[in-house]
C-alpha cells in the first residue's frame, strides 16, 4: 500500500516529549507516589541453584510497619510467568534456579520498614550443583535446571538450511573457520524496573508500570495470578529507557500479587540498581562456531555455523532471540548453501531476554568476523568483498526468503566507499603518533523488523477530533525514549495538514487505547504508524464530508484541510475544526484503523522448529566504519571517528532518525569496548554501575550518521524501523580495525585493554592486507 509523499516538505518537527523531559515535568512510572502508598519488595536469597526447604518469615512478621510477607503458597493462579514459555515462578516454591530468584514478597508501610523486613527473612536452602555455561549444561548427566523436560537443558534447538552446505563446503577452494565468544550485556536503562498497582473496589487490578508491552502484560499477569485479563488495566507512561529489558513481566506479577493483598491501597515496587542487575533480563551470552566457504574471487558459496545462546534460568524470549540470531547468522549476503544451527540452553545464570539487536548483535560479530578473515585470506579490499556479496532487491536471502522488500545495503556500502574517512584511511593510519597504532574497520549489518511469520504483527490506532478542534492520538505502543510517540504526532499533523501543537498524545492505556503489540522489534513506527495513517485517511474523509454539509458543497474534492479549518479555496469560505468538534457527537469524532504487517509469501521449508516468528521479510541495513587508535603501552582503544550509513527506508524526521543511530552505535560501542556482566558461579560480580561500566561521553566519538536514499513501499511514508540496526555494527567494526592492527581477528568481546595488549604482544598470524 504505497503512501503518498508528504503534501509539503516536512518542517523540523520538535519531539513531543522534549520540553517536558527537559524540564523534568514528565511523569514516569517511577515518579508516582499516590497517597497511602504500600511498599513492596522481593526477598531473593542470592543462591544460583538450590532446593528450598523452608522460608522463615516469623521474625520479619514481627517488625513494626510490616503488612504481609507472602510466599509461593500465597500465589493464586499458576504462579508461572513467561511470554511464550511459562516456566518462571512469580515466587519460587521448591527450587531457586538463579541468584535473582525470589522466594518471598514483603508489603510494608514504608520503604525503611521494607528494608528492615527484607533483612530478617531467611531461607533454608539445600544447594544443588549448578551449571554455568551451555557446554556444561549440554553434557550428558548435567544437573537439570527444569525437571521433566525431554530435551533436558535445551530450551530450543533449530536449523535453518538451504542448498547443500556440507557438500558445497567440501568443494570450496577457500575455507575458513572461526569461533566467537560474546558476553552478557545489561541494558543499563536509567529508570529501573518499577510500577504502582491498585486493586479497585470493583476488582480491577490497575497498574502504572514501566513496560514495553502493556497489552500483553494483562495476559502474563492474569495467567500467573489467576486473574481475568479483562480485569487488569495497564498504563504505560513514557519509559526512562528499556532497550528490550522491559519486554515481558519484570515487577508486574509481584506487584499484582501485592495489590491483591491490600485491596484499595496503592502498592509501589522499585528495584534498586543492584536488584536491576540481579533480577533483570540480560543480553544472552553466546558462542558461535563458523565455517565459511568461498570461491577464489571472493564469492561466498557456503556457510555452516552453530550458535549457542545461554538463556539463563528461564526461557523468557530465549528461543525467539536465538531464532532471530540464526536468521541473521549468514549476514546480509548472497549465499547459496547454508546450514545454520542454533541452540538456546538453560543454565543457572541470570535470565537472558530481549535486548536491542535481539540475538543479531551476537551473530554480527560472527559473520562479519568471517568476512574480514576472508578478505585477509584473499588479500581483497574488505569493502569490495562485501559489495560483491551484498544482498540486492529481489534476491533470496540466506534464510530462503525472496526479498520483495526494500534492500539498500549496496547504497550503504557505496556511501562509505566514497567517504573521506574511508578513502583517506591509509594516510590517516600512517600518521599514527608514537606508541600508537591506527586501524580502520568496516562492517555490514542488518536487522529484521517486526514479529515475523506466524505471529500477527498488528497495530490498531485510534484518532479523535477533540471538541476544541485539535486531535488526540491514542497511542498503543509504549515510547521507551525512542520517539515513536513524536512520530505519531508528526504523521497526523502532516497528513491532516495541522500545526504540530494541534496533536496531543495519550500514552498506552489498555482501557482507552486499542491492542497493538509491543514496543519492540523495530516495529513501533512502522506498524502503528501505518494504522494511524489509515485512521487519518478516514478522518480526512469524515472532516471534509461533515464540513461539506455546513459549507453547502456537493463535492468533497473542492474542500481542503488547513491548519485548524476545512477550507473551500474557490469561495474562500471555511469552517473551523473547533466548530466541527462541537457539531459532531463523540462517536463521530473518532476514527479507528488497523494494520497488519505483511509476511513472506512462499516461506522456505526450513526453520520448522520455529512455529512463530520465522521468517522475516523486512530488514534495515547499514555499513559502519570505525577509525581506531590503540595505545601500545596500555592496550586502550580510542575510537577516533565513526561513520554509520543506514538504509531505514525514507526518513520521516532526521533528528529522531539520527538519534536512534547514534544511540545504537553508543550502546554497540559499549558492548564492543567494555560492557560485560561478570559472573562467578551464577553470581553477578559487577552488580553496580561502578563495576559494570557503560561508556561515558568521553569514550564515544561523534558518530556521523548518514541516511541513504531509500523507500520501503509498505511503510508509513516509506520508512522502516531503525531502532536496532545501529547496535549491530560497532563490535564487528572495531574488531576489524583491531585485526588490521594486530594481524589477529579478536575472538572474544568486549575488546578490553587487557585483551588488546595481549594481542599486540603476540606475533601476527594473519597476513596484513596490502
Amino acid at each position, binding site marked *: 500500500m504505497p503512501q503518498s509523499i508528504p503534501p509539503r516538505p516536512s518542517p523540523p518537527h520538535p519531539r513531543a516529549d522534549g520540553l517536558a523531559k527537559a524540564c523534568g515535568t514528565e511523569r514516569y512510572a517511577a515518579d508516582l507516589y499516590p497517597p497511602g502508598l504500600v511498599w513492596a519488595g522481593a526477598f531473593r536469597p542470592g543462591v544460583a541453584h538450590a532446593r528450598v526447604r523452608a522460608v522463615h518469615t516469623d521474625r520479619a512478621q514481627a517488625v513494626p510497619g510490616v503488612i504481609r510477607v507472602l510466599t509461593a503458597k500465597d500465589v493464586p493462579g499458576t504462579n508461572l510467568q513467561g511470554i511464550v514459555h511459562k516456566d518462571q515462578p512469580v515466587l519460587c516454591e521448591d527450587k531457586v534456579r538463579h541468584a535473582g530468584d525470589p522466594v518471598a514478597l514483603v508489603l510494608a508501610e514504608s520503604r*525503611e520498614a521494607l*528494608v*528492615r523486613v527484607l*533483612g530478617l527473612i531467611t531461607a533454608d536452602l539445600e544447594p544443588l550443583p549448578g551449571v554455568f555455561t551451555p557446554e556444561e549444561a549440554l553434557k550428558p548427566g548435567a544437573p537439570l535446571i527444569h525437571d521433566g523436560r525431554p530435551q533436558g537443558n535445551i530450551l530450543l534447538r533449530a536449523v535453518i538450511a538451504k542448498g547443500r552446505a556440507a557438500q558445497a563446503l567440501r568443494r570450496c577452494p577457500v575455507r575458513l573457520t572461526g569461533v566467537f565468544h560474546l558476553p552478557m550485556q545489561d541494558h543499563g536503562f536509567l529508570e529501573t524496573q518499577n510500577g504502582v498497582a491498585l486493586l479497585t473496589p470493583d476488582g480491577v487490578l490497575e497498574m502504572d508500570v514501566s513496560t514495553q508491552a502493556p497489552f500483553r502484560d494483562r495476559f502474563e499477569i492474569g495467567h500467573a495470578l489467576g486473574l481475568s485479563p479483562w480485569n487488569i488495566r495497564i498504563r504505560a507512561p513514557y519509559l526512562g529507557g528499556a532497550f528490550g529489558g522491559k519486554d515481558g513481566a519484570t515487577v508486574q506479577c509481584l506487584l499484582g500479587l501485592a495489590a491483591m493483598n491490600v485491596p484499595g491501597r496503592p502498592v509501589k515496587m522499585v528495584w534498586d540498581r543492584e536488584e536491576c542487575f540481579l533480577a533483570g533480563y540480560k543480553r544472552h551470552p553466546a558462542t558461535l562456531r563458523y565455517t565459511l566457504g568461498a570461491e577464489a574471487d571472493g564469492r561466498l558459496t557456503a556457510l555452516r555455523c552453530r550458535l549457542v545462546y545461554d538463556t539463563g534460568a528461564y526461557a523468557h524470549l530465549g528461543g525467539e532471540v536465538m531464532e532471530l540470531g540464526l536468521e541473521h547468522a549468514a549476514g546480509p549476503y548472497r549465499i547459496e548453501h547454508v546450514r545454520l544451527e542454533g541452540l538456546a540452553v538453560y543454565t543457572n545464570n541470570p535470565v537472558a531476554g530481549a535486548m536491542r539487536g535481539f540475538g543479531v548483535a551476537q551473530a554480527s560479530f560472527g559473520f562479519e568476523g568471517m568476512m574480514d578473515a576472508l578478505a585477509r585470506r584473499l588479500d581483497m579490499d574488505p569493502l569490495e568483498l562485501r559489495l560483491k556479496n551484498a544482498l540486492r532487491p529481489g534476491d533470496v536471502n540466506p534464510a530462503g526468503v525472496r526479498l520483495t522488500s526494500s534492500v539498500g545495503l549496496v547504497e550503504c556500502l557505496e556511501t562509505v566507499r566514497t567517504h573521506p574517512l574511508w578513502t583517506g584511511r591509509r594516510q590517516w593510519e600512517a600518521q599514527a*603518533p*608514537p*606508541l600508537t597504532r591506527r586501524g580502520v574497520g568496516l562492517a555490514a549489518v542488518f536487522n529484521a523488523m517486526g514479529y515475523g511469520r506466524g505471529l500477527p504483527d498488528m497495530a490498531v490506532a485510534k484518532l479523535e477530533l477533540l471538541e476544541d478542534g485539535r486531535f488526540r492520538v491514542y497511542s498503543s505502543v509504549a515510547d521507551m525514549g525512542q520517539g515513536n510517540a513524536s512520530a505519531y504526532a508528526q504523521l497526523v499533523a502532516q497528513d491532516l495538514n495541522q500545526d504540530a501543537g494541534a496533536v496531543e498524545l495519550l500514552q498506552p492505556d489498555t482501557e482507552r487505547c486499542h491492542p497493538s503489540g509491543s514496543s519492540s522489534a523495530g516495529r513501533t513506527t512502522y506498524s502503528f504508524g501505518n494504522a494511524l495513517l489509515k485512521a487519518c485517511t478516514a478522518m480526512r474523509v469524515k472532516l471534509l464530508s461533515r464540513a461539506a454539509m455546513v459549507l453547502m458543497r456537493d463535492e468533497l474534492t473542492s474542500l481542503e484541510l488547513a491548519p485548524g479549518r476545512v477550507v473551500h479555496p474557490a469561495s474562500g469560505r471555511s469552517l473551523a475544526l473547533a466548530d466541527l468538534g462541537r457539531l459532531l457527537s463523540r462517536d463521530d469524532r473518532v476514527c479507528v484503523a488497523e494494520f497488519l504487517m505483511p509476511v513472506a509469501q512462499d516461506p522456505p521449508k526450513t526453520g520448522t522448529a520455529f512455529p512463530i516468528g520465522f521468517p522475516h521479510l523486512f530488514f534495515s541495513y547499514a555499513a559502519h566504519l570505525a577509525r581506531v587508535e590503540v595505545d601500545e*603501552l*596500555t*592496550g*586502550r582503544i580510542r575510537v577516533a571517528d565513526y561513520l554509520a550509513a543506514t538504509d531505514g527506508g525514507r526518513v520521516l524526521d532526521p533528528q529522531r532518525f539520527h538519534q536512534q543511530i547514534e544511540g545504537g552505535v553508543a550502546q554497540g560501542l559499549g558492548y564492543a*569496548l*567494555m560492557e560485560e556482566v*561478570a559472573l562467578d558461579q551464577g553470581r553477578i*560480580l*559487577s552488580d553496580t554501575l*561502578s*563495576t559494570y*561500566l557503560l*561508556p*561515558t*561521553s*568521553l*569514550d564515544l566519538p561523534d558518530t556521523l550518521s548518514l541516511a541513504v536514499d531509500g523507500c520501503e513501499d509498505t511503510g508509513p511514508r516509506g520508512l522502516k524501523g531503525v531502532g536496532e540496526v545501529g547496535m549491530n555494527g560497532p563490535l564487528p567494526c572495531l574488531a576489524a580495525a583491531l585485526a588490521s592492527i594486530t594481524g589477529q581477528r579478536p575472538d572474544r568481546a568486549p575488546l*578490553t*585493554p*587487557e585483551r588488546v*595488549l595481549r594481542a599486540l604482544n603476540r606475533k601476527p598470524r594473519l597476513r596484513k592486507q596490502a
Partner: protein
Amino acid sequence: MNVRLPVTLAELFAALEEPGARVLAGGTDLLVQLRSRAGAHGSQTLVGLERIRELQGITATDGVIRIGAAETHASILENRLARSRLPLLTAALAELGGPAIRNMGTIGGNACTASPAGDSLPPLYALEAEVELASRQGLRRMAISGFIQGPGRTSLERGEILSALLVPQAKGFDLHHFEKVGRRSALAIAVVSLAALIRRDPSGRVLEARLALGSVGPTVLRCPEAENLLTGRRLTLASLKPAAAALRRAVTPIDDVRATAAYRRQVAGNLLLRLAVLA
C-alpha cells in the same frame, strides 16, 4: 540520622564526640559506603566540614602550597596558584571522577579514604607532601606516606581530622607527568596510575627522578630502585626499560573485576616508557 554543620573547629571537635559521629566532606565516598549498609545507619551522626573556614583556602609560603582539606577537586583545578605551581597534582585531579564528583569531592576526603586508587595520591607521594592533622590537642604534621597505612587505614586518631595538605612545589623539576589507566575515560577507578617528576641537567641527563604508582599494591608506592636506575641517564626507550622492569618487580597488584594482576604489573612498567615520547 543526624547531620551537624559546625562553623568553627571547636564546634567540630565537640560534634565529633557524639557517639557514631563521622566526618562528612563531599560525601562521595562516605555516602556510597553508607548506602551499601542500608538500614544500618539509624544512629549515625554526620559532621559536615563545608562551613569551616579553616579547612578552606589555597595559599603559598616558602615554596609550600597549603591546601585546605575541604577544598573540592574542582576548586583546586580552578585555582591559579595550584594550576601553576602544582601541575602534577592538577593533572591528576582533572581525571578524577567526572564533573559532578569533582564538584563535591574534596582532596581531604580522597586522602582519608586511603584507597590505593585515589587519584590525588600518586602526585602527593611524588611531591613528598605532608598532611596537617588537627584535634583538640592541637596540630601535628607527617609525611603523606606515613599518614596512609593501608587500604582505608590512616594515622588519624579518634577526634582528629585532616586539616590541610602541605605540598612542596617541585622546583627545578622539568617533567611533571601523570597518567591514569582506567577502564573508561571518566568515572573510572584507576587500574594503574603513574606520577613522575623528573629533574634534568641542560644536556637532558636525569638528576633526580621520583616515581609513584597507584593501584598496584595496598598503598601508593614509590620505587627507589627504578628512580636510581634513571639517574644519570637520558630518557630514551632503552634507558627506561630497565627502570620499567624494576617497577614491575616492585609492585604487588591483585586480580579484581577491573583487571588482572598480570595486566597491572605489565602496564605499571609500560607507563614509564611514555616518558620517552614526552621528553
